[in-house]
Each structure stands twice: as C-alpha cells, then as structure tokens.
C-alpha cells in the first residue's frame, strides 16, 4: 500500500519511476476525502492544482530532472501563505483571505518539487493545544476520534498519522509541533529559532514562532527540513549559517553521546504510563552506547507563566493589522471607524484569540510593562542560561513531550489554565530558541506517547540523528491507527 510508505521511500520510488506522482496524488486525495468527515484535518483541499503539479513533476522526473522532493505529496499548515490558495489561519478573520505571495517555506518546497495537496486545519492563529479553537471545527485524533490531536498543528499531525500525507509543514510557538506529534504518534521537529524563514508564515508570537515538520520518521523529517531551512534575506531574524545535509548525516553510532534527563520534566503532573514509555526509550539509547544522567534546569517551572506573558504581548501587536480595512473580515454596515474596528475584530476573532489579545494588551500597558513583560524577558534569559549550562554537561536533553497522552475533546476547553499546562514541557525550548523534537516511544492505554529530544542551538543534525538511530531500533513510528492502516 502506497500510503504506508515513508516519504523517503516514496521519493526514491518516484525517482526510479516505480510510481508516478499522479498515482500518489490520486491515492492520497482519495484518502483525504474519505477521512475528512471523521478527522476534519484539512481546511482546503487543492485537488486540481495538485494533479497539475503532479503531472509537471512526472514530466520533470521522466526527463531526469526534478528536485529532491519531486512529485512527493505534502500539505501546509494553513498559516503558510500560498499564492492563489486561501490562507485562513483557522480564523473567520481570514476565511476568504487569498495571499498574493508564497511564504518562503512554500516557495522552497515548491522548488524542491513537492506537490501540495491542501491546507491543514489548525487552532485559530496557532493559539491552542487541542485544535479546538479552529473556526473550521476541531480536528480529531486518528487513534480515537473522541480525542484531540493536539495543537496548534493538529491538522498536520492528524493527516500524517492517518497517512493522508507522508509529511506536512507545521509551526511551533510553545509546543505546536511536538505536542500534536506526541498525541498522534508521529515525528515532529521544531528547529532552532532562525533556522527556517518566517516570511509568509502568519505571525502569532514573532520571537517564538518557528516553522518545522511533521512526518512519519526522523529520516523523512530530515528530507523535508533540508529543503525548508536556510537564510532568507526577507526575514531579519533568520540566521545566515550553512544548512547541513541532514539525511546524509543520519546513522552514525550513538556511542559516547551524553544524554541528560531533565529532572523538572518528571514532576507530579507526569502520567506514570508516559513516564514508563520515556524511561524505556532512554534504556534503548543506553543500549546504543549513550550515557545517561539526570540534569536540573531549575528555572523551567517559570516557563509557562513567562510564555503566557511574552506570547500574548507579541500577539496583541501582531494581530492589530486585522482591522477590517485592507483584508480579512469586515463587519457589515459600519457606522464609523470605531464601529468598523470593534465589530470586524469582535466578529472575526474567536474567544481564545481575544483572550490572548486582551492579556497581551494588558501586560504591555503603562504601569504593567515592567512587572509583566520585562520580568518575563528576564525569566526567558534565565531559562536560556539553564539550557546553556546543561549543554555544557550533556549533548542532548530528553524527557516526555507532554504530561499525558491525548485527552478528550471538550475536556479542557472550560479552563484555559489546565489547557496551558499541557505545554509545560515544550515551552522552554521556544523561550530559549533551541531545537527540539518529539518521537513516538510507546503507548499509554493504547494512545501514543512522545519522547522529547532537545539540543543546543543549530543541533538539528544531532537531534535527527539520535531520533533516527532510535527508530532503527524501534517500530513505534511505523504504527498506524487501525482505521487508517
């Protein structure tokens, strides 16, 4: 069955002309269509365009041309701007917004020959941990459709887990790649801040947002990331450093690699079954020759409060441009300018987005700025310092991605704080800007559990390598929900 193959295999088969891109695209489009009522992973499916791109890819491959991903079907989280195809950000505000340009990530994957099947569902403006804040309805977890897939990249994760696509783009501001990867039993990587261009990636919190990949395996993620990463002169925060050939660097032995288990991640909130899976995974790494020790990052408990000051502050400013004047939702029959602003924004944004805009506006206000925003920035530096010290002792940090496996739809929507605590293990990597992954490492009561691997700045290669070695020893990443097998 085509859909069970990894992106790596598909890319090779396409190049060997064992399969055509049109065949692949047809097969995956059929799966997408069949899954949509149950999963709601897509906001837009671009079947016609995808088939045209697939035909072009087949012609290129037949002529011996085509990029590294020629003919490979992928999808984009619906906050990457795509020229000619609407980009909604999961919001009513942008329900009908068609970008006039391609995001840099979109353009690079297009240049590599990837074929886009559609735009994936997500929490509104990437604000959420369950994909329940989407204006286009929640995405459901392929392992159990009563459960959430995680968020905000829930559509991307569910689609890859159900093998509606071999891989998809995603973004991670506080865990939005890793948490859904863990909940859906797939592999996700959030690169170093600045590694992947943010140009054309609709902003939530600019100093934390980072584009990345959700895929079936570390090797597949490496292939995607190689095409996406790199300096972009249109993003002043992107880093001008060479991009290693990630897939080529996989497979080195792990002997001598020093792994630190983050003590603060083994708190009372951690589900014992999840802890068991993580400890078993660490045992595998030890068998492979890595050394293991416990490491303390004392300021990690401050990461959630710091994050929920910094991220809303930036979001309150980033989302000011949605004012009903030039693009996006505009209220009907505005009486005057104030009315236009108030009603367009009140109607266009959902409750979680409004909550964060209000929180952010508050923490930046005169008289509160020092107490909240500046203090949060100081905490951020402390956390970055914790990581720096830890990486003086160990090469990689590991721990659980989430405190529990996927939870039921609607179970946390009433209390934002319990929802926010779901990101307790993932947020610190965003605050410090370091790269982090989530890799499937077992099942707790039949639901996937993620192992989180964190590295120093620009250590994507080491992360992918460790994850790949682990995946050579285990088959958790090859498990597919029965319904979609």
């Amino acid at each position, binding site marked *: 069955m085509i859909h069970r193959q990894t992106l790596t295999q598909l890319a090779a088969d396409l190049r060997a002309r064992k399969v055509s891109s049109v065949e692949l695209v047809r097969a995956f489009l059929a799966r997408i269509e069949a899954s949509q009522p149950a999963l709601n992973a897509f906001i837009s499916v671009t079947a016609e365009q995808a088939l045209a791109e697939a035909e072009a890819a087949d012609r290129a491959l037949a002529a011996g041309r085509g990029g590294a991903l020629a003919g490979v079907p992928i999808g984009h989280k619906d*906050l990457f701007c795509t020229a000619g195809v609407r980009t909604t950000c999961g919001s009513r505000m942008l329900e009908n917004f068609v970008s006039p340009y391609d995001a840099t990530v979109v353009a690079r994957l297009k240049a590599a020959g990837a074929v886009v099947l559609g735009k994936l569902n997500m929490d509104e403006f990437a604000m959420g941990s369950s994909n329940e804040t989407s204006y286009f309805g929640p995405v459901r977890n392929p392992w159990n459709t009563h459960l959430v897939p995680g968020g905000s990249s829930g559509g991307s994760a569910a689609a890859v887990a159900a093998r509606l696509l071999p891989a998809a783009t995603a973004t991670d501001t506080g865990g939005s790649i890793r948490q859904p990867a863990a909940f859906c039993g797939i592999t996700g990587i959030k690169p170093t801040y600045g590694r992947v261009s943010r*140009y*054309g990636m609709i*902003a939530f919190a600019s100093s934390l947002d980072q584009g990345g990949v959700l895929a079936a395996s570390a090797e597949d993620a490496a292939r995607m990331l190689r095409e996406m990463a790199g300096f972009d002169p249109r*993003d002043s925060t992107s880093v001008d450093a060479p991009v290693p050939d990630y897939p080529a660097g996989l497979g080195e032995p792990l002997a001598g690699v020093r792994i630190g288990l983050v003590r603060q991640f083994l708190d009372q909130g951690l589900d014992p079954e999840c802890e068991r899976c993580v400890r078993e995974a660490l045992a595998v790494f030890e068998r492979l020759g890595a050394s293991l020790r416990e490491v303390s990052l004392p300021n990690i408990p401050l990461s959630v409060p710091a994050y929920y000051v910094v991220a809303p502050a930036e979001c309150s400013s980033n989302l*000011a*441009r949605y004012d009903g004047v030039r693009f996006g939702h505009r209220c009907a029959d505005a009486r005057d*300018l104030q009315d236009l602003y108030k009603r367009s924004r009140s109607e266009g944004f959902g409750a979680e987005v409004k909550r964060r805009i209000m929180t952010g506006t508050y923490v*930046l206000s*005169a008289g509160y700025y020092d107490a909240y925003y500046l203090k949060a920035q100081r905490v951020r530096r402390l956390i970055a310092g914790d990581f720096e010290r830890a990486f003086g002792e160990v090469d990689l940090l590991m721990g659980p991605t989430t405190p529990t496996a996927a939870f039921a739809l609607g179970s946390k929507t009433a209390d934002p704080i319990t929802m926010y605590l779901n990101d307790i293990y993932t947020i610190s990597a965003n605050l410090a800007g370091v790269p982090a992954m989530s890799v499937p490492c077992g099942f707790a009561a039949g639901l996937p559990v993620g192992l989180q691997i964190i590295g120093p700045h620009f250590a994507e290669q080491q992360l992918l390598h460790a994850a790949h070695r682990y995946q050579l020893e285990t088959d958790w990443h090859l498990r597919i929900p029965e319904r979609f097998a």
Partner: protein
Amino acid sequence: MSAWETVIGLEIHAQLATRSKIFSGAATAYGAAPNTQACLVDLGYPGVLPVLNAEAVRMAVRFGLAIGARIARQSVFARKNYFYPDLPKGYQISQYELPIVAGGAIDIVLEDGSVKRIGVTRAHLEEDAGKSLHEGLGSLTGIDLNRAGTPLIEIVSEPEMRSAREAVAYMKKVHTLVRYLEICDGNMQEGSFRCDANVSVRPAGSDQFGTRAEIKNINSFRYVEKAIQYEAARQIELIESGGKVAQETRLYDPDKGETRSMRSKEEANDYRYFPDPDLLPLEIEAAYIDTVRAGLPELPDAKAARFVGQYGLSAYDAGVLTASRDLADYYEAVVRAVPEQPKLAANWVMGDLAAALNKEGLEIGSGRLPAEALAGLLARIADQTISGKIAKEVFEAMWAGGESADAIIEAKGLKQITDTGAIERAIEAVMAENPAQLADYRAGKDKLFGFFVGQVMKATQGKANPAQLNELLKKKLPG
C-alpha cells in the same frame, strides 16, 4: 503685568532621502498616484516582515556625527501600538528606549549676533505613516499608503529655546544641516521636513517648567513662528486670568492663525511600546562610524568660519552665504573665477542675484544663471569696463536673455568711456550748452558740480568713467 518666559522644545521629523522605504523595497518618490508605491510590507499583509534599509542607517549616523552626538553601538526598534487607518500594521516601527543618536548640539545665531547652543536630546529612526485624504470623496475618507514606511529621523531638542524666533532659527539650522548632509530634501510643502513644538510659559526667572502644550505637524518656518507666538500668548493670558494650562496636543490652523485642542492627556493613547521582535537590535561597528565620518562634507559652521577668514566677509554675510550648500558652492564658484573680488561677489550673490531668484521663486541650484556667467559680469566691473550702475543693467539683460555679460556690453555699446579725449569733448559740449549754469558755478555755486556730472553722464549714456569724469570736470569747469 509680570514678565513671562516662553520655553520651547522642538521635535523635527525629517524624511530621509533614501530611494526605497525603511523596511521594504517600495519606492519613496513623492507625488505618485495613491497606493501605487505601497508593497505588501507597507500594506501590513499577513506574514510579511520588515528588513532594515542600510542607507537609512547611514543617513542617521551622518546626522548624529554632524551634531557631535553619540552614535549608539546598539539601538533597538520598538513598536508603537495604536489603531489608525493610515497605520496598516496597527503599530509604527520606531525607536524608543535606545535611539541610534543621543546627545548633540546645534548652534544658532541670535538677533544680537551672539551664538546660542541648543541641545539635541536624541534622534531616532522610524517609519512614516500613510495619509488620510478628505478632498473630493464626499463623506468618505481615502487612505493613501504611498508614504507609509518612508524613513524618518525624528530630532528631539532640549527645551532650551526661549522665543519663537529662536525656535525658527533652530529649525532653519537643522534644515540647512540635513540638506548639507544630503539626507533630506527639506521640502516642507511636501511634508519632508516638519515639526511638533512643545510650548510652555513660566514667570521670568523661574527654574520650574510650566505645563506644556504640544502643537503637532507644523510644516513651515512662518507657521512655527506664528503658532508659538499665538500659543505662548494664549497660555499667558489664560494664567493671568486665573486659568491653568492643560497638558494636551494642539493643532495650528494657519487660516485662523490660532492653535486649538486636539486631545487631552487623559485621551492620549497608551502606545504599549515594546521591542519589535521582527528586527534584531541594530549593531553599529566603530569602523563603520569612522567611514561615515570620513565622508562628511564641510558643515555650515565650519564653512562660514572659513569664508570669514579666507574671503574677509562679515560673520553675517558668511552666515547668509552658507545657509545652503548650493548657495555656498555657487558663491565659491564665482570667487574662483574672480579671485580678487570676494566681497563684490558676496554683494552680488546676496543682492541682485538673490532678489532675482526670489522674484521668480527659484532656487540657487536652478541653473538659471550659472556662477561663471555672474563671474563674467563681475570681471567687467573689476576691470572697469563698466560701472556698477551699468552692471545692474547688464545683469538684468543677462537674467532675461541668458547672454554673457561681454556679449551684452558689446551689443548695447555699454563699454565705459575711459578715453580722456572723449570725456573732455563731452564736457566741453555740455559747458557750451549750459552757459548760465557755468557762469553760476564759476561765481561760487559749487553745488552745480553735480549738475554737470549728470549732464555728461546723460550725454554718454552713463558710460563715462565716473572717476575720470570727476577729475576732468574739476580741471575744466573753473575755466
């Protein structure tokens, strides 16, 4: 009535003369059809990001160095958040806590000729907003975002000016400076150079500041003077009649010649400044500063001092001639052609030429009368080919027709008569025609000497060399 002192600080906004905008590649040229020079970044489209224009940084550094300020090795762009239709992102990218230029001073010359130093607190880089258009749209307001993202440098003075005149002198000096530095075209009608004035009054001798009002967006020197005068008088009258000045933003209405309230302190926006996470802190290397410093032109004060020393001009004349770089360059080009006559050149450039330009509303750089052409005229005065009086006639012809001084002198036969014989013959003819006056003169009516000078000049169409004529008349009239 007690004596009051006015306290003024200015915030000058100068648009930097970069070709593209401060954070995007769109053109900055003025006057294009609305919204044709606004790209996706200027429109604040979802997903777009700002990239700093290095040329704007260079220009700000030039300004900082020219006023002896510190150039921050690290400065930070911040977002100033507020909603307005001509502000597409809902925030303006500016600099707040860490501006690129801090500390500095500008010297102005007061009416009594003394020099006063005005401190410049800071100068920071920011983007301009778009414009709201109200004309021809009925009850609607149009938005033109061509100006959105145009680079500005905001120059903030200390509250050290004490009269509207001083404020105007300071603003003119800054205007001169930015044009010398070629960082701003200084076009005030197009809004390239405009200012906000902070005005307060206090009893003379007090060391406390009064409550200030900020008069926004004044775009001419004359309006600055009038707005400040009006505002100071308003505040004094208010206080003297028992009222209190409110801290508020006011607008100057040039038609009515008054300022009026725009919004009070209570209504003021909380701008929620914070560092822009899309832009890294701006780092400036010492070597870069040195390079910019090496490229600075001779600045107005240095040039004026040189003109006094090198050309023997008065401080006043040197000040006038160095008020713009074009004027100073023109003057020096004239002097190069007639090196012996720096003062004559100064008089002509500041006098007849300035008047002629002014009359037609032209700038010195318009090329209407090249320096070489004016020098050609001055050379003929210097070598006595024509008198100063005839020179004015020649100048007018040159201005009107564009021919050279020599060609006009030749064509109109204006060459001065220096031939003693010719002048003598003219004198003899005049004496013969006016026997009665001659008799009176010889009888002791000395005043008639002037009459004879006039008559001979008339007979020679003004061309007789005045000195020679005097001498010969003195010899001949007594008989």
